[in-house]
């Protein structure tokens, strides 16, 4: 029997039907009958605003991304319930088959404008999940592999469905200050919208759409991207010396004020500041080498920041992995000009291992450009491994890769 659980009891009993949605709602203070308190909307006008936003999100994702009509029950419409007592919207599989949405009846934003901006962002986000359900249904255990890309795509869709909607920026503080958190971490799923943004800027929006729609059930997002990228380019490659998209993303993510960066967003820089560095050094000619020891999890990066005095003409860099054998670590050095532009970038190259007992070493030398006012130099260390640590401590993983970074300044 339907409706004997607590949630079902809370369901308001009014219904507003649109072309693609069946919206269950109630009014806080109806003309007659019991007031619904937190479960009720202010007026019918608000219901219509929700309905319009839902249809807009449907239309944009259906038409622009070429997505099929989502899986629906016999009504052919997507079920939406507007309820109080929930802080976040949620998409779930009704009857373990049909994607449905629960939206909050109100939020705690300070102004009408910011409240409505948030509601629209949440609507785009959940409608994106509903469409995404077709290829990777949340009822399938394999869909857990897609959680970060699902959330990244849903957050990205917020600003695409409703142009100039900046609500997604509430997720950026953590992205700015935690570059060392793995891209596919469950604690950073909303922050994955930044890699989706980067991929869309570099390969076009259809690429990110196809990563979702043309992937197989058992693939991971990274496997799908590696397969779909053209000309031998890989999303991520452990091969040192081979370019990969993830390393480029980590570099561009640092240069938010450079118009050539695919993540160019000076207003994000103004609002949240520079991406967090792991360690900072001041270098002058003849000063002792700057040495940093650190570690890095899979699909993550760290920034090391060097202020150089005018007398410094070049830097010699060396990164050594702590473990013997090959390492998924890569490194690149770049020069940040005073105006925020990336004035020069160079990858560190590996010294071939002569035996299995050797530790991986990357080296590089960079001559600082003379015609540029240098703000600082940054070394971007990326972990291009894919294997996260599991609970089984004996299983090898690409996490916690320890390394030592040494930089020497020459006059």
């Amino acid at each position, binding site marked *: 029997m339907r409706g004997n659980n*607590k949630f*079902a009891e809370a369901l308001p009993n009014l219904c507003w039907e649109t072309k693609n949605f069946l919206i269950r709602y109630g009014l806080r203070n109806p003309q007659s009958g019991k007031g619904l308190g937190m479960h009720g909307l202010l007026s019918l006008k608000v219901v219509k605003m929700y309905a319009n936003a839902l249809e807009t999100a449907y239309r944009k994702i259906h038409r622009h991304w070429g997505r099929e009509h989502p899986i629906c029950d016999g009504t052919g419409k997507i079920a939406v319930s507007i309820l109080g007592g929930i802080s976040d919207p949620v998409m779930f599989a009704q*009857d*373990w088959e049909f994607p449905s949405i629960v939206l909050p009846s109100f939020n705690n934003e300070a102004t009408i404008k910011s409240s409505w901006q948030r509601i629209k962002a949440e609507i785009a986000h959940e409608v994106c999940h509903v469409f995404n359900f077709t290829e990777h249904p*949340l009822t399938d255990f394999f869909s857990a592999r897609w959680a970060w890309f699902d959330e990244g795509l849903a957050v990205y869709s917020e600003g695409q469905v409703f142009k100039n909607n900046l609500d997604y920026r509430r997720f950026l503080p953590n992205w700015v200050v935690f570059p060392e958190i793995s891209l596919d971490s469950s604690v950073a799923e909303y922050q994955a919208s930044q890699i989706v943004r980067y991929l869309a800027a570099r390969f076009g929006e259809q690429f990110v759409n196809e990563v979702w729609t043309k992937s197989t059930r058992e693939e*991971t997002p990274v496997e799908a991207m590696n397969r779909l990228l053209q000309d031998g380019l890989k999303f991520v490659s452990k091969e040192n010396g081979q370019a990969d998209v993830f390393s480029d993303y980590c570099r561009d993510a640092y240069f938010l004020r450079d118009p050539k960066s695919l993540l160019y967003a000076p207003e994000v820089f103004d609002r949240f500041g520079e991406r967090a560095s792991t360690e900072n050094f001041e270098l002058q000619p003849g000063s002792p080498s700057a040495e940093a020891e650190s570690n890095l999890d899979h699909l993550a990066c760290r920034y090391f920041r060097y202020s150089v005095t005018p007398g410094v003409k070049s830097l010699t860099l060396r990164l050594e992995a702590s473990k013997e054998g090959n390492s998924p670590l890569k490194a690149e050095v770049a020069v940040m000009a005073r105006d925020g532009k990336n004035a020069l970038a160079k990858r560190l190259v590996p010294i071939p291992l002569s035996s299995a007992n050797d530790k991986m070493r990357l080296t590089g030398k960079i001559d600082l450009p003379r015609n540029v006012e240098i703000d600082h130099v940054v070394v971007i260390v990326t972990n291009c491994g894919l294997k996260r640590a599991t609970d089984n401590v*004996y299983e090898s993983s690409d996490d916690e890769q320890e390394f030592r970074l040494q930089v020497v300044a020459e006059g």
Partner: protein
Amino acid sequence: MPRFLIVEDDTQTSKVLRDLLKLNFTSPLPDEGEPQIDTASTVTEAKEFINNARKPYHVAILDFRLPPEHLGDSTKVDATACLQAMRSTPPPLIAHITSNPNDEKVKAHIKEYHTERANRYDFALSKLDSDYTEKLLGKLKKFLYERPIEEQLDLMFGREAQTRAPSLLLTPGRSRGQSCMTQELAELCRQIVAHWDDLDEPLKNRIEGIFEVNKASKPVKISLL
């Protein structure tokens, strides 16, 4: 994936248990793989495993009367490995297995250290029972699947969800961006569907107070509204 410690001096039994755990707790997802199963044949070895564990075990399966402390004298119960395991944080499930269930010392140990312990999952099984491995498996599944589901229900719906007003079912006070409710709820539901048959009745009742569960379907189907 769960981490098991088997402490058993009989190599044949140890192998049977190892195979049983590997068969039943290996994830179908390749990125999760096999459970961690460590085997010790003496109390000393067991204590070393517990001391050196980088992460505490989820389950310790402990035989009684282990060498070398009592080699040639199998009448004593050495409870030190058991006590050491119990001190781990969080404490593991202790699954005692014995060929001497009626031994007074074994009974005394069970009564003293397990019957009245807060961990309601601890138990002892007789290896003389022909179906003891099935019973063991059932109890391990209950522990390994029920506990995470209960914890997630507490987190998402509050411990008192069944007695509260429906309007407070989802934990209030969170703000957009702190967690992905869609993914968390999906994972919870996947676990409930996958392990429904292994859950005990009170937990099933609690779940049915929140979700609509279609038990006629195999596997069960679950709905929120």
